[in-house]
């Protein structure tokens, strides 16, 4: 330390000295060196490097999605802790707590709305974050494991949402959890004992509420906190991929993180806090009648993020719809960075011009393909009916599954013929499957009416 730093100015008042002593470095540094030191020595800011590549500050590269997840997590933690004080996790009292939140507790509705909408938004933003990283090649070496942790975090976020879904103990909650947990029942061998453990019995009841409450307020948040810390630490160590145009060298000019990055983050956070508060003020979180285990609503749907899975289950034998297809998808997602060897295109959106067109084409094909598949299967295709001598795991499982895989392999070869590199072909295949899954989710949410019959949402 220099003499200048250690010397206490004589005329400084005690309150001012106490305030300054909170932070190791001056709050208003005067030069770049001071600004870098301030970031390095700050408890919160030190998740950032002291300098940031100037090009990486470009908003339409990251869209601030990772940061937004951190903000949503913080909002959820604060509102969640508040809600603990107004909620009783028992079947007799849970629904009354919700009514009290709406009618008696000061700002009860606002806090619940904030928590509800932030939680749902978090699922959407986590998926968008995954897409952003995927399409800019942000998972290539040395970031493969961080990609895997990101997927684990996405699953935990969905788990947090799902366990929270039950807590209001209304009809919506009760039956969405019943249907959602029953999907797990189809897993061979471990499915049934796992369901019993999760539900604390054979049906959703008091024990389920206790289990889900414990998972929702302690286990899952702690797991997310730990894993997210690891995730962010790896981002910091592996460094962010630098955006660039095709055939352009990455611009490695760096600026000090304080204020160039921190000010953008600050404004971004404020804008989103404003959006969340406005939304939570005007749009109420849904609350239906109190749960009635004897009366299922028609139709009974799982939570919205599981509707793609439920839709899949309507077309395939459960072993395939609930296990094999999602399992293969998840496995592919974990494996993809370890297959990717094209480091030259990292930081370029969709890898190349060709990659961009193929991805766009695949996305459209996914939407059309999923709709066509659902309609054909709904109104024409009836393999179990045509082949009644086969068990349904073959007629409604292996046969359509084999057909689907053949189509995908054919598409992969066609992509290769269209001069796609291996990583562009994988990218297009991922795009096709992802867009088909989103389409199935939308069909499940909006195009399924009474008895889960196909309907048009506008009629």
């Amino acid at each position, binding site marked *: 330390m220099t003499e200048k730093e250690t010397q206490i100015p004589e005329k400084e008042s005690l309150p001012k000295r106490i305030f300054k002593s909170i932070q190791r470095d001056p709050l208003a540094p005067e030069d770049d060196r001071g600004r870098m030191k301030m970031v390095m020595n700050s408890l919160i800011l030190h998740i950032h490097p002291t300098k940031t590549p100037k090009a990486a500050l470009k908003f339409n590269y990251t869209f601030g999605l990772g940061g937004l997840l951190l903000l949503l997590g913080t909002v959820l933690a604060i509102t969640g802790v508040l809600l603990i004080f107004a909620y009783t996790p028992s079947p007799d009292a849970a629904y009354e707590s919700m009514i009290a939140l709406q009618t008696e507790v000061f700002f009860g509705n606002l806090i619940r709305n904030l928590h509800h909408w932030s939680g749902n938004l978090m699922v959407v933003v986590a998926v968008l974050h995954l897409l952003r990283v995927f399409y800019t090649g942000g998972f290539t070496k040395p970031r493969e494991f961080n990609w895997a942790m990101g997927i684990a975090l996405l699953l935990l976020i969905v788990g947090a949402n799902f366990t929270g879904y039950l807590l209001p103990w209304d009809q919506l909650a009760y*039956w969405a959890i*019943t*249907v959602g*947990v*029953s*999907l797990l*029942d189809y897993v061979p061998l471990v499915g049934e004992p796992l369901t*019993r*453990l999760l*539900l*604390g*019995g*054979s*049906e959703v*009841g008091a*024990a389920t509420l206790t*289990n889900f409450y414990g998972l929702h307020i302690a286990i899952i948040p702690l797991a997310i906190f730990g894993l997210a810390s690891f995730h962010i630490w790896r981002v910091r160590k592996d460094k962010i991929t630098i955006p660039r145009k095709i055939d352009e060298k990455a611009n490695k000019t760096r600026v000090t993180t304080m204020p160039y990055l921190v000010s953008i983050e600050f404004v971004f956070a404020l804008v989103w806090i404003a959006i969340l508060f406005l939304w939570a003020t005007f749009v109420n979180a849904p609350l239906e009648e109190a749960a009635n*285990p*004897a*009366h*299922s*609503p*028609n*139709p*009974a749907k799982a939570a919205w993020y599981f509707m793609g899975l*439920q839709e899949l*289950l*309507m077309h395939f*034998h*459960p072993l395939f719809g609930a296990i094999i297809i999602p399992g293969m998808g998840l496995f592919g997602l974990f494996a993809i960075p370890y297959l990717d060897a094209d480091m030259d295109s990292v930081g370029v959106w969709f890898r190349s011009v060709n990659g961009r067109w193929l991805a766009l084409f695949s996305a459209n094909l996914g939407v059309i393909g999923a709709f066509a598949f659902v309609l054909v299967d709904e109104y024409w295709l009836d393999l*179990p009916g045509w082949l009644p001598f086969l068990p*349904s795991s073959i007629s409604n499982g292996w046969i359509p599954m084999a057909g689907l895989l053949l189509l995908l392999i054919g598409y992969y070869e066609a992509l290769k013929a269209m001069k796609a590199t291996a990583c562009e072909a994988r990218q297009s295949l991922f795009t096709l499957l992802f867009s088909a899954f989103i389409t199935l989710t939308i069909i499940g949410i909006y195009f399924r009416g009474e*008895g*889960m*019959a196909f309907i048009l949402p506008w009629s």
Partner: protein
Amino acid sequence: MEKLSRRDFLGLAWGAAGALAITELSFVGFKFLSPRATDGEFGGEFNLGAYEDYPLGSVTPVEMGRFYLVRLENGGFLAIYRRCTHLGCAVPFDQATGKFTCPCHGSVFTNEGDVLNQPAPRPLDLFALSMNEEGEIIVNTSSPIQRDKTSVEDVFHA
């Protein structure tokens, strides 16, 4: 066999002790969290009274036990669990048509629980039925009995 050095032996011993400790703790945790049996309510036994009280060809809902007591035309009894085998909805019995029709995803079952209309993958589950010395029907709801096909052997005869 190669001679095990003292260092390797101690390393193995530490590893084994660690694995044992983790297994024990997992077992304790698993048993602690596993569901408990509930007496008297759903999950326990139900005494439904004399069997003669139930007319032939009747389906009687037992709300607390979450099952239907079915008496077939031939006098046999079945205790059919209310939970749909597709995705767990509560299946109501339609007295007019004499069928179980699930409101959620359209599965239809006969009064014996056999699947008439998919997506349900298997017949409705059963609960164990027995009779005590006074001729009263006893239904044990502790664990549902799954079946791939309906069979005459499922039916309990008084």
